[in-house]
Protein backbone atom coordinates (compact mmCIF):
# COMPACT_ATOMS: atom_id res chain seq x y z
CA UNK A 1 0.00 0.00 0.00
CA UNK A 2 2.79 2.41 -0.89
CA UNK A 3 1.73 6.04 -0.54
CA UNK A 4 3.45 9.29 -1.41
CA UNK A 5 3.04 12.02 1.16
CA UNK A 6 4.55 15.46 0.63
CA UNK A 7 7.10 13.93 -1.68
CA UNK A 8 8.14 11.06 0.59
CA UNK A 9 7.33 7.47 -0.16
CA UNK A 10 5.75 5.67 2.79
CA UNK A 11 5.26 1.92 2.74
CA UNK A 12 1.74 2.24 4.14
CA UNK A 13 -0.65 5.15 4.68
CA UNK A 14 -0.73 4.54 8.44
CA UNK A 15 0.86 7.00 10.85
CA UNK A 16 1.76 6.32 14.48
CA UNK A 17 0.13 9.03 16.62
CA UNK A 18 2.49 11.16 18.66
CA UNK A 19 2.78 10.26 22.32
CA UNK A 20 2.03 6.64 21.71
CA UNK A 21 4.98 4.28 22.16
CA UNK A 22 7.42 6.44 20.16
CA UNK A 23 9.94 6.93 22.96
CA UNK A 24 13.06 5.51 21.34
CA UNK A 25 14.45 4.49 17.99
CA UNK A 26 14.02 0.78 18.56
CA UNK A 27 10.30 1.03 19.16
CA UNK A 28 9.76 3.50 16.29
CA UNK A 29 11.49 0.98 14.05
CA UNK A 30 9.41 -1.89 15.40
CA UNK A 31 6.21 0.03 14.76
CA UNK A 32 7.41 0.74 11.22
CA UNK A 33 8.23 -2.93 10.67
CA UNK A 34 4.72 -3.72 11.83
CA UNK A 35 3.14 -1.76 9.01
CA UNK A 36 3.31 1.84 10.12
CA UNK A 37 4.28 4.03 7.18
CA UNK A 38 5.21 7.02 9.30
CA UNK A 39 6.12 6.73 12.98
CA UNK A 40 5.78 9.94 14.96
CA UNK A 41 8.03 10.67 17.90
CA UNK A 42 6.69 11.67 21.30
CA UNK A 43 6.34 15.47 21.31
CA UNK A 44 9.66 17.21 22.01
CA UNK A 45 9.54 20.25 24.26
CA UNK A 46 11.65 23.30 25.01
CA UNK A 47 12.92 22.05 28.38
CA UNK A 48 13.13 18.85 30.41
CA UNK A 49 9.71 17.97 31.78
CA UNK A 50 8.68 14.92 33.77
CA UNK A 51 4.99 15.12 32.96
CA UNK A 52 2.26 14.63 35.52
CA UNK A 53 2.15 12.15 38.35
CA UNK A 54 0.21 8.93 37.83
CA UNK A 55 -2.50 7.99 37.13
CA UNK A 56 -1.87 9.54 33.75
CA UNK A 57 -3.42 7.08 31.30
CA UNK A 58 -6.62 5.16 31.94
CA UNK A 59 -8.48 2.81 29.64
CA UNK A 60 -12.21 3.53 29.75
CA UNK A 61 -13.02 0.52 27.59
CA UNK A 62 -14.27 2.44 24.58
CA UNK A 63 -11.31 4.78 24.53
CA UNK A 64 -8.84 6.29 26.94
CA UNK A 65 -8.41 9.39 29.03
CA UNK A 66 -4.89 10.69 29.52
CA UNK A 67 -2.97 13.55 31.03
CA UNK A 68 0.59 12.43 30.60
CA UNK A 69 1.61 16.06 30.69
CA UNK A 70 4.04 16.32 27.79
CA UNK A 71 7.08 14.67 29.36
CA UNK A 72 10.17 15.44 27.34
CA UNK A 73 13.90 15.29 27.87
CA UNK A 74 13.93 18.77 26.34
CA UNK A 75 15.18 19.33 22.81
CA UNK A 76 18.75 19.98 23.94
CA UNK A 77 19.02 16.63 25.71
CA UNK A 78 18.34 14.16 22.96
CA UNK A 79 21.72 13.83 21.30
CA UNK A 80 21.86 10.08 21.89
CA UNK A 81 18.48 9.53 20.27
CA UNK A 82 19.25 11.71 17.23
CA UNK A 83 22.56 9.86 16.82
CA UNK A 84 20.75 6.56 16.68
CA UNK A 85 18.02 7.91 14.42
CA UNK A 86 20.54 9.30 11.96
CA UNK A 87 21.27 5.78 10.81
CA UNK A 88 17.61 4.88 10.37
CA UNK A 89 16.09 3.20 7.35
CA UNK A 90 12.59 4.53 7.96
CA UNK A 91 10.92 7.95 7.89
CA UNK A 92 10.07 9.82 11.07
CA UNK A 93 7.76 12.62 11.97
CA UNK A 94 9.15 14.76 14.80
CA UNK A 95 6.42 16.24 16.95
CA UNK A 96 7.34 19.36 18.88
CA UNK A 97 5.67 21.76 21.28
CA UNK A 98 6.43 25.05 22.97
CA UNK A 99 4.87 27.54 25.34
CA UNK A 100 5.39 30.52 23.05
CA UNK A 101 6.12 31.24 19.41
CA UNK A 102 9.77 31.73 20.40
CA UNK A 103 9.98 28.36 22.06
CA UNK A 104 8.33 26.67 19.08
CA UNK A 105 10.84 28.36 16.78
CA UNK A 106 13.83 27.41 18.91
CA UNK A 107 12.81 23.77 19.20
CA UNK A 108 11.81 23.54 15.54
CA UNK A 109 15.03 25.02 14.21
CA UNK A 110 17.13 22.70 16.32
CA UNK A 111 15.09 19.62 15.49
CA UNK A 112 14.98 20.44 11.78
CA UNK A 113 18.76 20.29 11.72
CA UNK A 114 18.61 16.74 13.04
CA UNK A 115 16.96 15.60 9.84
CA UNK A 116 13.53 14.23 10.62
CA UNK A 117 11.38 13.69 7.54
CA UNK A 118 8.61 15.92 8.84
CA UNK A 119 8.04 18.25 11.75
CA UNK A 120 4.65 18.20 13.39
CA UNK A 121 3.61 21.17 15.52
CA UNK A 122 1.56 20.05 18.46
CA UNK A 123 -0.42 23.25 18.89
CA UNK A 124 -3.17 21.29 20.49
CA UNK A 125 -2.17 19.42 23.59
CA UNK A 126 -4.65 19.98 26.39
CA UNK A 127 -2.59 18.43 29.15
CA UNK A 128 -0.49 21.30 30.24
CA UNK A 129 -1.38 24.56 31.87
CA UNK A 130 0.80 26.73 29.73
CA UNK A 131 1.82 24.68 26.74
CA UNK A 132 0.20 24.21 23.41
CA UNK A 133 -3.53 24.42 23.57
CA UNK A 134 -3.72 28.19 23.51
CA UNK A 135 -2.45 28.21 19.94
CA UNK A 136 -4.77 25.62 18.52
CA UNK A 137 -8.05 27.26 19.49
CA UNK A 138 -7.28 30.61 17.91
CA UNK A 139 -6.76 31.17 14.18
CA UNK A 140 -4.41 34.12 14.57
CA UNK A 141 -2.09 32.40 17.06
CA UNK A 142 -2.10 29.27 14.93
CA UNK A 143 -1.13 31.34 11.93
CA UNK A 144 1.63 33.10 13.86
CA UNK A 145 3.29 29.99 15.19
CA UNK A 146 3.12 28.13 11.88
CA UNK A 147 4.47 31.12 9.92
CA UNK A 148 7.33 31.63 12.35
CA UNK A 149 8.33 27.97 12.43
CA UNK A 150 8.01 27.59 8.67
CA UNK A 151 10.80 30.15 8.21
CA UNK A 152 13.36 28.21 10.22
CA UNK A 153 12.83 24.60 9.17
CA UNK A 154 13.88 22.65 6.11
CA UNK A 155 11.39 19.80 6.19
CA UNK A 156 7.67 19.80 5.55
CA UNK A 157 5.55 21.19 8.37
CA UNK A 158 2.47 19.44 9.70
CA UNK A 159 0.12 21.36 12.02
CA UNK A 160 -1.65 19.14 14.55
CA UNK A 161 -5.01 20.53 15.60
CA UNK A 162 -7.35 20.15 18.52
CA UNK A 163 -11.08 19.46 18.24
CA UNK A 164 -11.57 21.94 21.09
CA UNK A 165 -11.35 24.76 18.55
CA UNK A 166 -14.86 26.18 18.07
CA UNK A 167 -14.22 26.19 14.31
CA UNK A 168 -11.43 23.80 13.41
CA UNK A 169 -11.75 24.53 9.70
CA UNK A 170 -10.76 28.15 10.21
CA UNK A 171 -7.73 27.08 12.24
CA UNK A 172 -6.71 24.69 9.48
CA UNK A 173 -7.10 27.43 6.90
CA UNK A 174 -4.99 29.78 9.00
CA UNK A 175 -2.28 27.13 9.19
CA UNK A 176 -2.41 26.53 5.44
CA UNK A 177 -2.17 30.24 4.77
CA UNK A 178 0.81 30.43 7.10
CA UNK A 179 2.63 27.77 5.11
CA UNK A 180 1.73 24.47 6.73
CA UNK A 181 2.28 21.60 4.31
CA UNK A 182 -0.26 19.32 5.93
CA UNK A 183 -2.79 19.15 8.75
CA UNK A 184 -2.95 16.42 11.37
CA UNK A 185 -6.34 16.12 13.07
CA UNK A 186 -7.25 15.43 15.74
CA UNK A 187 -5.46 15.53 19.05
CA UNK A 188 -7.40 14.22 22.04
CA UNK A 189 -10.93 15.51 22.60
CA UNK A 190 -12.62 16.96 25.64
CA UNK A 191 -10.90 17.38 27.98
CA UNK A 192 -12.77 15.02 30.23
CA UNK A 193 -12.69 14.01 33.85
CA UNK A 194 -13.41 10.76 35.63
CA UNK A 195 -14.09 10.86 39.34
CA UNK A 196 -13.64 7.82 41.54
CA UNK A 197 -16.67 8.05 43.78
CA UNK A 198 -15.22 5.91 46.55
CA UNK A 199 -12.19 8.12 47.10
CA UNK A 200 -14.19 11.16 45.91
CA UNK A 201 -11.26 12.20 43.79
CA UNK A 202 -10.57 12.67 40.10
CA UNK A 203 -8.74 9.56 38.91
CA UNK A 204 -6.08 11.35 36.88
CA UNK A 205 -3.51 13.10 39.05
CA UNK A 206 -3.87 16.12 36.72
CA UNK A 207 -7.64 15.76 37.22
CA UNK A 208 -8.58 16.45 33.58
CA UNK A 209 -7.37 14.55 30.56
CA UNK A 210 -7.79 14.21 26.82
CA UNK A 211 -10.10 11.58 25.38
CA UNK A 212 -8.96 9.28 22.62
CA UNK A 213 -10.01 6.06 20.93
CA UNK A 214 -13.32 4.81 19.53
CA UNK A 215 -15.46 7.21 21.53
CA UNK A 216 -13.97 10.23 19.75
CA UNK A 217 -14.11 8.84 16.23
CA UNK A 218 -17.27 10.76 15.26
CA UNK A 219 -15.57 13.97 16.35
CA UNK A 220 -12.43 13.14 14.36
CA UNK A 221 -14.43 12.31 11.25
CA UNK A 222 -16.37 15.56 11.52
CA UNK A 223 -13.17 17.58 11.98
CA UNK A 224 -11.47 16.00 8.99
CA UNK A 225 -14.64 16.57 6.95
CA UNK A 226 -14.69 20.26 7.90
CA UNK A 227 -10.97 20.71 7.30
CA UNK A 228 -11.11 19.00 3.89
CA UNK A 229 -13.66 21.57 2.78
CA UNK A 230 -11.46 24.43 3.97
CA UNK A 231 -7.95 23.57 2.78
CA UNK A 232 -6.19 21.96 -0.15
CA UNK A 233 -3.16 20.58 1.72
CA UNK A 234 -3.30 16.91 2.72
CA UNK A 235 -4.72 15.76 6.03
CA UNK A 236 -3.55 13.07 8.44
CA UNK A 237 -6.80 11.87 9.95
CA UNK A 238 -6.80 10.26 13.36
CA UNK A 239 -8.90 9.85 16.44
CA UNK A 240 -10.37 6.49 17.29
CA UNK A 241 -9.28 4.73 14.11
CA UNK A 242 -9.02 1.03 14.97
CA UNK A 243 -10.00 -0.91 11.85
CA UNK A 244 -9.72 -0.72 8.10
CA UNK A 245 -13.33 0.39 7.94
CA UNK A 246 -12.61 3.23 10.35
CA UNK A 247 -9.71 4.21 8.12
CA UNK A 248 -11.90 4.16 5.01
CA UNK A 249 -14.42 6.32 6.84
CA UNK A 250 -11.92 9.03 7.71
CA UNK A 251 -10.43 8.85 4.20
CA UNK A 252 -13.91 9.43 2.80
CA UNK A 253 -14.09 12.45 5.10
CA UNK A 254 -10.92 13.69 3.42
CA UNK A 255 -7.83 12.16 5.02
CA UNK A 256 -4.76 11.29 2.94
CA UNK A 257 -2.99 9.38 5.71
CA UNK A 258 -4.57 7.74 8.72
CA UNK A 259 -3.14 7.92 12.23
CA UNK A 260 -3.44 5.33 14.96
CA UNK A 261 -2.78 5.75 18.66
CA UNK A 262 -5.19 4.26 21.15
CA UNK A 263 -5.98 1.28 18.94
CA UNK A 264 -2.54 -0.06 19.83
CA UNK A 265 -4.15 -0.82 23.17
CA UNK A 266 -6.99 -2.77 21.64
CA UNK A 267 -5.27 -4.57 18.77
CA UNK A 268 -1.58 -4.62 19.70
CA UNK A 269 1.40 -3.29 17.76
CA UNK A 270 0.35 -5.35 14.76
CA UNK A 271 -2.65 -3.01 14.41
CA UNK A 272 -0.73 -1.18 11.67
CA UNK A 273 -0.42 -4.27 9.50
CA UNK A 274 -3.95 -5.31 10.32
CA UNK A 275 -5.46 -1.97 9.35
CA UNK A 276 -3.34 -1.77 6.20
CA UNK A 277 -4.56 -5.19 5.13
CA UNK A 278 -8.14 -4.36 5.97
CA UNK A 279 -7.92 -1.21 3.86
CA UNK A 280 -6.47 -3.11 0.86
CA UNK A 281 -9.06 -5.81 1.18
CA UNK A 282 -11.88 -3.30 1.29
CA UNK A 283 -10.51 -1.35 -1.65
CA UNK A 284 -10.08 -4.54 -3.67
CA UNK A 285 -13.56 -5.77 -2.81
CA UNK A 286 -14.97 -2.43 -3.94
CA UNK A 287 -12.68 -2.21 -6.94
CA UNK A 288 -11.45 1.24 -6.02
CA UNK A 289 -8.42 3.10 -4.69
CA UNK A 290 -7.54 5.41 -1.81
CA UNK A 291 -7.41 8.31 -4.27
CA UNK A 292 -10.87 7.61 -5.61
CA UNK A 293 -12.54 7.43 -2.22
CA UNK A 294 -10.73 10.36 -0.64
CA UNK A 295 -13.33 12.93 0.33
CA UNK A 296 -16.08 10.80 -1.21
CA UNK A 297 -18.47 11.74 1.57
CA UNK A 298 -18.43 15.30 0.25
CA UNK A 299 -20.06 14.32 -3.03
CA UNK A 300 -23.83 14.45 -3.14
CA UNK A 301 -25.42 11.02 -3.05
CA UNK A 302 -27.56 10.36 -6.18
Amino acid at each position, binding site marked *: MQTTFLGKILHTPIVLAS*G*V*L*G*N*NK*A*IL*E*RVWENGCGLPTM*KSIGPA*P*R*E*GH*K*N*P*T*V*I*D*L*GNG*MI*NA*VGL*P*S*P*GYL*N*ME*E*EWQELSGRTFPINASIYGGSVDEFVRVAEFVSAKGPDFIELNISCPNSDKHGMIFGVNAQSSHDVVAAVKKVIHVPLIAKLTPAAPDIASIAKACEDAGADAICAINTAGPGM*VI*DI*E*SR*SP*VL*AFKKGGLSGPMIKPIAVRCVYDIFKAVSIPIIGLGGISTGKDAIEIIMAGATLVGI*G*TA*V*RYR*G*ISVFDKVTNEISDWLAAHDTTMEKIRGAAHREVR
Partner: protein
Amino acid sequence: MITQLLPAMVTVADKEVHSPEFATLYVNQAIDFKPGQFVMVWIPGVDEKPYTISHHTPDRFGITVEAKGIFSKKAVSLGAGDKIGIRGPFGNGFNMGVAYKRIAVVAGGCGMAPLAPLVEAFQTDTGPEIVLIQGARSKSFLLYPDRFTAKVEICTDDGSKGYKGFVTDILMEKIKKQKIRDLSAASVPAFDMVYACGPEIMMAKVFDICEAHGIPCQVSLERYMRCGFGVCGACVCGHAVVCKDGPVFESKMLRTMADFNTRALLKTGKPVPLNEYTTWRCQ
Protein backbone atom coordinates in the same frame (compact mmCIF):
# COMPACT_ATOMS: atom_id res chain seq x y z
CA MET B 1 -14.54 -6.14 40.35
CA ILE B 2 -10.95 -5.49 39.51
CA THR B 3 -10.33 -4.91 35.80
CA GLN B 4 -7.78 -3.29 33.53
CA LEU B 5 -10.06 -0.26 33.22
CA LEU B 6 -10.67 2.30 35.95
CA PRO B 7 -9.02 1.49 39.28
CA ALA B 8 -11.32 -0.37 41.66
CA MET B 9 -11.10 0.98 45.19
CA VAL B 10 -10.52 -1.97 47.47
CA THR B 11 -9.94 -2.24 51.19
CA VAL B 12 -6.70 -3.47 52.66
CA ALA B 13 -7.87 -6.49 54.65
CA ASP B 14 -4.65 -6.93 56.60
CA LYS B 15 -0.98 -6.17 56.52
CA GLU B 16 1.93 -8.47 57.19
CA VAL B 17 5.05 -6.63 58.25
CA HIS B 18 8.12 -8.58 57.15
CA SER B 19 10.71 -6.08 58.35
CA PRO B 20 10.90 -2.32 58.77
CA GLU B 21 11.34 -2.07 54.99
CA PHE B 22 8.95 -4.74 53.74
CA ALA B 23 5.27 -5.29 54.17
CA THR B 24 2.60 -7.23 52.34
CA LEU B 25 -0.85 -5.69 51.92
CA TYR B 26 -3.66 -8.21 51.47
CA VAL B 27 -6.94 -7.62 49.70
CA ASN B 28 -9.84 -10.05 50.04
CA GLN B 29 -10.97 -9.95 46.44
CA ALA B 30 -10.75 -12.25 43.50
CA ILE B 31 -8.37 -11.28 40.74
CA ASP B 32 -7.51 -13.08 37.56
CA PHE B 33 -3.83 -13.88 37.82
CA LYS B 34 -0.81 -15.70 36.42
CA PRO B 35 2.46 -15.64 38.40
CA GLY B 36 4.55 -12.74 37.12
CA GLN B 37 1.70 -10.37 36.38
CA PHE B 38 1.38 -7.02 38.10
CA VAL B 39 -1.26 -4.50 39.09
CA MET B 40 -1.25 -0.70 39.15
CA VAL B 41 -1.75 0.46 42.72
CA TRP B 42 -3.26 3.91 43.21
CA ILE B 43 -3.18 5.89 46.42
CA PRO B 44 -5.42 8.90 45.71
CA GLY B 45 -3.60 12.16 46.22
CA VAL B 46 -0.23 10.40 46.13
CA ASP B 47 0.60 8.44 42.97
CA GLU B 48 0.06 5.17 41.16
CA LYS B 49 2.76 2.52 40.70
CA PRO B 50 3.10 -1.05 39.46
CA TYR B 51 3.41 -3.92 41.92
CA THR B 52 3.71 -7.60 41.36
CA ILE B 53 1.12 -9.86 42.89
CA SER B 54 3.10 -11.75 45.49
CA HIS B 55 0.31 -13.80 47.04
CA HIS B 56 -2.71 -15.26 45.36
CA THR B 57 -5.62 -17.50 46.26
CA PRO B 58 -8.99 -17.56 44.52
CA ASP B 59 -10.47 -14.89 46.80
CA ARG B 60 -7.46 -13.02 48.07
CA PHE B 61 -4.23 -11.50 46.85
CA GLY B 62 -1.33 -9.58 48.25
CA ILE B 63 1.37 -7.20 47.13
CA THR B 64 4.71 -6.92 48.85
CA VAL B 65 6.16 -3.43 48.98
CA GLU B 66 9.64 -2.30 49.84
CA ALA B 67 9.60 1.16 51.42
CA LYS B 68 11.88 3.31 49.31
CA GLY B 69 10.40 6.50 47.98
CA ILE B 70 7.36 8.58 48.79
CA PHE B 71 4.86 6.21 47.31
CA SER B 72 6.15 2.94 48.64
CA LYS B 73 6.66 4.40 52.13
CA LYS B 74 3.06 5.56 52.06
CA ALA B 75 1.94 2.12 50.87
CA VAL B 76 3.83 0.34 53.63
CA SER B 77 2.27 2.68 56.19
CA LEU B 78 -1.25 1.67 55.17
CA GLY B 79 -3.13 -0.82 57.27
CA ALA B 80 -6.34 -2.81 57.52
CA GLY B 81 -9.35 -0.72 56.47
CA ASP B 82 -7.40 1.66 54.26
CA LYS B 83 -8.45 1.90 50.65
CA ILE B 84 -6.30 1.60 47.57
CA GLY B 85 -7.17 1.61 43.89
CA ILE B 86 -6.22 -1.41 41.84
CA ARG B 87 -6.33 -1.95 38.09
CA GLY B 88 -4.96 -4.95 36.29
CA PRO B 89 -3.57 -7.46 36.22
CA PHE B 90 -1.27 -6.43 33.42
CA GLY B 91 1.52 -8.03 31.49
CA ASN B 92 2.36 -11.60 30.66
CA GLY B 93 3.24 -13.87 33.50
CA PHE B 94 5.97 -16.49 33.50
CA ASN B 95 5.76 -19.28 31.00
CA MET B 96 5.41 -22.50 32.98
CA GLY B 97 6.20 -25.67 31.04
CA VAL B 98 4.14 -28.62 32.20
CA ALA B 99 6.86 -31.10 31.31
CA TYR B 100 9.70 -29.40 33.19
CA LYS B 101 11.75 -31.83 35.25
CA ARG B 102 14.21 -29.44 36.89
CA ILE B 103 14.03 -25.69 37.27
CA ALA B 104 15.98 -23.03 39.09
CA VAL B 105 14.45 -19.93 40.62
CA VAL B 106 16.79 -17.08 41.46
CA ALA B 107 15.47 -14.22 43.58
CA GLY B 108 17.29 -11.05 44.62
CA GLY B 109 15.75 -8.79 47.27
CA CYS B 110 12.11 -8.13 46.63
CA GLY B 111 12.54 -9.93 43.31
CA MET B 112 11.14 -12.77 45.39
CA ALA B 113 7.70 -11.13 45.15
CA PRO B 114 6.83 -12.25 41.60
CA LEU B 115 8.69 -15.54 41.98
CA ALA B 116 6.95 -16.75 45.13
CA PRO B 117 3.59 -17.55 43.47
CA LEU B 118 5.54 -19.23 40.67
CA VAL B 119 7.35 -21.48 43.13
CA GLU B 120 4.05 -22.29 44.83
CA ALA B 121 2.50 -23.19 41.51
CA PHE B 122 5.38 -25.53 40.69
CA GLN B 123 5.40 -27.14 44.16
CA THR B 124 3.02 -29.97 43.33
CA ASP B 125 3.47 -33.73 43.51
CA THR B 126 3.98 -33.91 39.78
CA GLY B 127 5.94 -30.66 39.57
CA PRO B 128 9.62 -30.33 38.68
CA GLU B 129 12.55 -30.47 41.03
CA ILE B 130 13.05 -26.85 42.18
CA VAL B 131 16.36 -25.25 43.01
CA LEU B 132 15.38 -22.06 44.82
CA ILE B 133 18.10 -19.48 45.37
CA GLN B 134 17.34 -16.38 47.38
CA GLY B 135 19.66 -13.47 48.00
CA ALA B 136 19.37 -10.20 49.89
CA ARG B 137 21.47 -7.46 51.43
CA SER B 138 21.18 -9.07 54.85
CA LYS B 139 19.04 -11.47 56.84
CA SER B 140 16.19 -9.06 57.58
CA PHE B 141 15.69 -8.41 53.86
CA LEU B 142 14.98 -12.08 53.13
CA LEU B 143 11.31 -12.26 52.22
CA TYR B 144 8.91 -15.08 53.12
CA PRO B 145 11.30 -17.21 55.21
CA ASP B 146 8.88 -20.08 55.86
CA ARG B 147 6.73 -19.91 52.77
CA PHE B 148 8.00 -22.77 50.60
CA THR B 149 8.20 -26.53 50.90
CA ALA B 150 11.10 -26.38 48.44
CA LYS B 151 14.48 -25.97 50.11
CA VAL B 152 15.82 -22.41 49.86
CA GLU B 153 19.51 -21.72 49.16
CA ILE B 154 20.19 -18.47 50.91
CA CYS B 155 22.88 -15.87 50.29
CA THR B 156 23.33 -12.44 51.86
CA ASP B 157 25.71 -9.66 50.91
CA ASP B 158 26.89 -9.39 54.50
CA GLY B 159 26.78 -13.08 55.38
CA SER B 160 24.18 -12.49 58.10
CA LYS B 161 22.46 -15.65 56.86
CA GLY B 162 23.50 -18.42 54.49
CA TYR B 163 26.25 -18.04 51.96
CA LYS B 164 28.05 -14.69 51.90
CA GLY B 165 28.02 -13.64 48.28
CA PHE B 166 25.92 -13.59 45.15
CA VAL B 167 23.01 -15.72 44.10
CA THR B 168 24.77 -16.19 40.78
CA ASP B 169 27.63 -18.03 42.51
CA ILE B 170 25.13 -20.56 43.83
CA LEU B 171 23.48 -20.85 40.42
CA MET B 172 26.85 -21.64 38.81
CA GLU B 173 27.60 -24.24 41.44
CA LYS B 174 24.17 -25.87 41.00
CA ILE B 175 24.66 -26.01 37.25
CA LYS B 176 28.05 -27.67 37.68
CA LYS B 177 26.68 -30.24 40.14
CA GLN B 178 23.84 -31.00 37.82
CA LYS B 179 26.27 -31.45 34.93
CA ILE B 180 28.21 -34.02 36.91
CA ARG B 181 24.98 -35.85 37.73
CA ASP B 182 24.06 -35.74 34.05
CA LEU B 183 27.47 -36.83 32.74
CA SER B 184 25.93 -39.68 30.84
CA ALA B 185 23.80 -37.21 28.86
CA ALA B 186 26.20 -34.30 28.44
CA SER B 187 24.00 -32.37 26.01
CA VAL B 188 21.04 -32.17 28.39
CA PRO B 189 20.84 -28.66 29.91
CA ALA B 190 21.21 -28.52 33.68
CA PHE B 191 17.76 -26.98 34.02
CA ASP B 192 14.67 -26.91 31.84
CA MET B 193 14.22 -23.27 32.82
CA VAL B 194 15.80 -20.71 35.08
CA TYR B 195 13.51 -17.99 36.43
CA ALA B 196 15.04 -14.86 37.88
CA CYS B 197 13.99 -11.58 39.37
CA GLY B 198 16.09 -9.05 41.22
CA PRO B 199 18.37 -6.17 40.37
CA GLU B 200 18.76 -5.97 36.58
CA ILE B 201 22.50 -6.57 36.80
CA MET B 202 21.82 -9.80 38.68
CA MET B 203 19.29 -10.86 36.05
CA ALA B 204 21.78 -10.03 33.32
CA LYS B 205 24.35 -12.27 35.01
CA VAL B 206 21.83 -15.06 35.33
CA PHE B 207 21.03 -14.65 31.64
CA ASP B 208 24.74 -14.77 30.69
CA ILE B 209 25.30 -17.90 32.76
CA CYS B 210 22.28 -19.55 31.21
CA GLU B 211 23.39 -18.61 27.71
CA ALA B 212 26.81 -20.04 28.40
CA HIS B 213 25.27 -23.32 29.51
CA GLY B 214 22.51 -23.55 26.94
CA ILE B 215 19.77 -23.10 29.52
CA PRO B 216 16.64 -21.10 28.68
CA CYS B 217 15.70 -18.46 31.18
CA GLN B 218 12.99 -15.97 32.02
CA VAL B 219 13.52 -12.72 33.88
CA SER B 220 11.09 -10.09 35.05
CA LEU B 221 12.09 -6.53 34.18
CA GLU B 222 11.13 -3.18 35.66
CA ARG B 223 10.83 0.23 34.04
CA TYR B 224 8.99 3.42 34.93
CA MET B 225 5.37 2.90 33.92
CA ARG B 226 2.37 5.05 33.18
CA CYS B 227 -0.42 3.20 31.37
CA GLY B 228 0.56 -0.38 32.17
CA PHE B 229 -0.96 -1.63 28.92
CA GLY B 230 1.41 -0.85 26.11
CA VAL B 231 0.36 2.56 24.84
CA CYS B 232 2.28 5.40 26.43
CA GLY B 233 5.79 4.11 25.74
CA ALA B 234 7.15 5.12 29.15
CA CYS B 235 8.46 1.64 29.83
CA VAL B 236 10.17 0.78 26.55
CA CYS B 237 13.41 -1.18 26.84
CA GLY B 238 14.94 -1.32 23.40
CA HIS B 239 12.15 -2.47 21.12
CA ALA B 240 10.34 -4.20 23.98
CA VAL B 241 7.37 -2.70 25.76
CA VAL B 242 7.98 -3.94 29.30
CA CYS B 243 4.41 -3.60 30.61
CA LYS B 244 2.85 -5.37 27.64
CA ASP B 245 5.45 -7.67 26.05
CA GLY B 246 6.78 -8.40 29.55
CA PRO B 247 7.43 -7.81 32.33
CA VAL B 248 8.67 -11.39 31.95
CA PHE B 249 11.03 -11.93 29.03
CA GLU B 250 12.57 -15.14 27.73
CA SER B 251 16.15 -15.65 26.53
CA LYS B 252 15.23 -15.28 22.89
CA MET B 253 13.89 -11.78 23.46
CA LEU B 254 16.67 -10.81 25.87
CA ARG B 255 19.26 -11.58 23.18
CA THR B 256 17.90 -8.81 20.95
CA MET B 257 16.74 -6.33 23.57
CA ALA B 258 19.08 -3.39 23.05
CA ASP B 259 18.66 -1.73 26.42
CA PHE B 260 18.56 -4.79 28.67
CA ASN B 261 21.00 -4.16 31.53
CA THR B 262 22.24 -0.98 29.90
CA ARG B 263 19.65 1.77 29.66
CA ALA B 264 16.30 2.91 30.94
CA LEU B 265 14.14 5.98 30.36
CA LEU B 266 13.60 8.55 33.05
CA LYS B 267 10.15 10.06 33.49
CA THR B 268 11.14 12.71 30.96
CA GLY B 269 11.74 9.98 28.42
CA LYS B 270 15.48 10.52 28.48
CA PRO B 271 17.48 7.32 28.16
CA VAL B 272 20.15 6.98 30.84
CA PRO B 273 22.53 4.24 31.93
CA LEU B 274 20.88 1.85 34.34
CA ASN B 275 22.88 2.94 37.37
CA GLU B 276 21.75 6.50 36.82
CA TYR B 277 18.15 5.35 36.54
CA THR B 278 18.32 3.36 39.78
CA THR B 279 16.71 0.03 39.76
CA TRP B 280 13.88 1.05 42.01
CA ARG B 281 12.33 -2.32 42.17
CA CYS B 282 15.06 -4.40 43.67
CA GLN B 283 18.34 -2.82 44.51
